[in-house]
């Protein structure tokens, strides 16, 4: 193990222990790790946004020859004056800092929200609506070479009953009473069963993360002793 690797191992192990100390109670070690983590990541996010977003997508497109001195890939493309528009909207967001012009920032926010709503509409309509409706059209009686495939038929029946009853639960225009109410209650039970399965599955994944951290601590202890 090189000296640099040893330093990395120690920093990782000590910060892990500091964070895990929160399991006992809030304490100065946890506070240190928390503020250290927040400070470093906030600065890193800013640097990342500047070099990965602002420079190549905005300044590098507006003035490629100028930015090309520090970002060589920017000089490969011709100037793209259209990029002045997002820059202008970005500056409008900063208008919040000047009280009399603060209202201008709402235009930029409206653009972001409006664009997101429009762009997401067709995406969700395809994946969450059309795709799911199509894949739910399954036969309740499945045949195979040997006759009726009872297992597949039962699976499809559970799928369709669970889906239709869950849809009933998420129907807001009608009071959940009578037959409709019973279907809706079956729907919420179906959802809870699904949540239970998902909970167990995810807990298993989290345990693997914990094992990863323990392995790091194990390497650290191995280095000490």
């Amino acid at each position, binding site marked *: 193990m090189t000296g640099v690797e040893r330093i990395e191992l120690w920093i990782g192990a000590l910060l892990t222990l500091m964070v895990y100390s929160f399991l006992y109670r809030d304490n100065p070690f946890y506070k240190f790790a928390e503020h250290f983590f*927040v400070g470093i990541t906030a600065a890193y996010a800013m640097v990342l946004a500047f070099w990965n977003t602002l420079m190549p997508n905005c300044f590098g497109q507006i003035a490629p020859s100028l930015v090309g001195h520090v970002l060589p890939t920017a000089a490969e493309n011709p100037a793209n004056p259209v990029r002045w528009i997002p820059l202008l909207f970005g500056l409008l967001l900063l208008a919040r800092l000047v009280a009399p012009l603060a209202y201008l920032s709402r235009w930029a926010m409206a653009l*972001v929200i409006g664009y*997101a709503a429009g762009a997401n509409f067709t995406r969700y*309509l395809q994946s969450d*609506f059309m795709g799911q409706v199509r894949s739910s059209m399954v036969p309740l009686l499945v*045949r195979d070479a040997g006759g009726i495939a009872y297992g597949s038929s039962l699976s499809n029946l559970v799928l369709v009953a669970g889906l239709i009853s869950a*849809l009933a639960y*998420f*129907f807001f225009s009608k009071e959940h009473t009578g037959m409709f109410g019973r279907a809706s209650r079956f729907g919420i039970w179906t959802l809870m069963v699904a949540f239970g399965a998902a*909970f167990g599955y995810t807990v298993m994944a989290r345990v693997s993360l914990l094992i990863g951290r323990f392995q790091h601590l194990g390497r650290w202890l191995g280095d000490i002793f």
Partner: protein
Amino acid sequence: MLRVVSTVLIVLLAPAAQAFADPPSPPPEIRAADTPHDRGRSVDLSWSPSASEESGGVTRYVVQRAVDRPEEFHAVVTLPAGSRAYTDTSVRDGVSYFYRVRAVGPAGESESASAGPVRASQQWFNPRKSNLLVIAAVLIGGISWFIFQASKGRRLYIRKIAGIEAIDEAVGRATEMGKPVLFIPGIEDMDNVQTVAGLSILGNVAQLVARYETRLEVPTRRSLVMSVARETIKEAYLKVGRPDLYNDAMVYYITDEQFAFVAAVDGIVVREKPAACFYMGAFFAESLILAETGNSVGAIQVAGTAMPTQLPFFVAACDYTLIGEELFAASAYLSNDQKMLGSLKGQDVGKAIAAGFILLGVALQTAASASGNGALVNAARWVSSLFRINP
């Protein structure tokens, strides 16, 4: 005997030997056309196989391209033998291109006729997605109809949602205990509709907080969310006549990094000990960490998310959870905004149509599977194709 064997070998191996001796013959036909129904910057190429391919005389095809004139061709891509088509996505709209496809074998490279000129262009309408257009039109039509009805004064009925009553209760409890209310509008940016719904609920919570003169804390992971949250809260305080209580410091940005944000929020929870915690928006792996920490300080917790993988954690660790679409319904219900209520009713129409088509599709598929009748099989396929996602 030896002569006979050598004659047979010569007869058998002659074609192969010939194939390796001469350069392969060129693909006899090359076609180049603008990719149909696309957003431009794409040309489709196809060609017939070289006559030498069958005898193993072709190992690859080289696609070449020239700009403006059929001269000075440059290689675009090399494809394995057996390839018949290629889509060139490295072109610019409105520029004339010429293409050649050369067959390359052990004995060299073929000549090639050129195809072109071809120009890439963008089409406004993709007829393959007509079904998407019709479904979108039906949904938008339903939503517009209910918004129109609401604007004419018609009362739109929305059923009660359990988690909504809990919001009043939670803020009231925080007021009685003299402790702050913590609101996390998810960890995603403003381009996520769940964040928008979460901020809409924040507006209602802020009105209650302003009315009861309770303290509100809103840490955010995205700077744009912080700006919108400030606007939302300021408006809420103005609405209830308490702009004097508002200050920008109640909404603050922490960091963009997911788990650093969680570490900071956990710290805030154990130090400030809020009496009510709201988690409304899009969450990922941090959902259980946040909810467990809130639970450990005895806060009443109301969550709402449409992230299916995180709902189990909120259901387990929070007092009330708005499940999936209830989050959007709650924001419409609380805001009492006629456009949002109309939109919710329109979505119900969409759900009813979806349920109807699913049941129809299931009935046809079942009947087709049970009877094997060709007409039923075709009918089931046709209904299913209405919802096909075409590229």
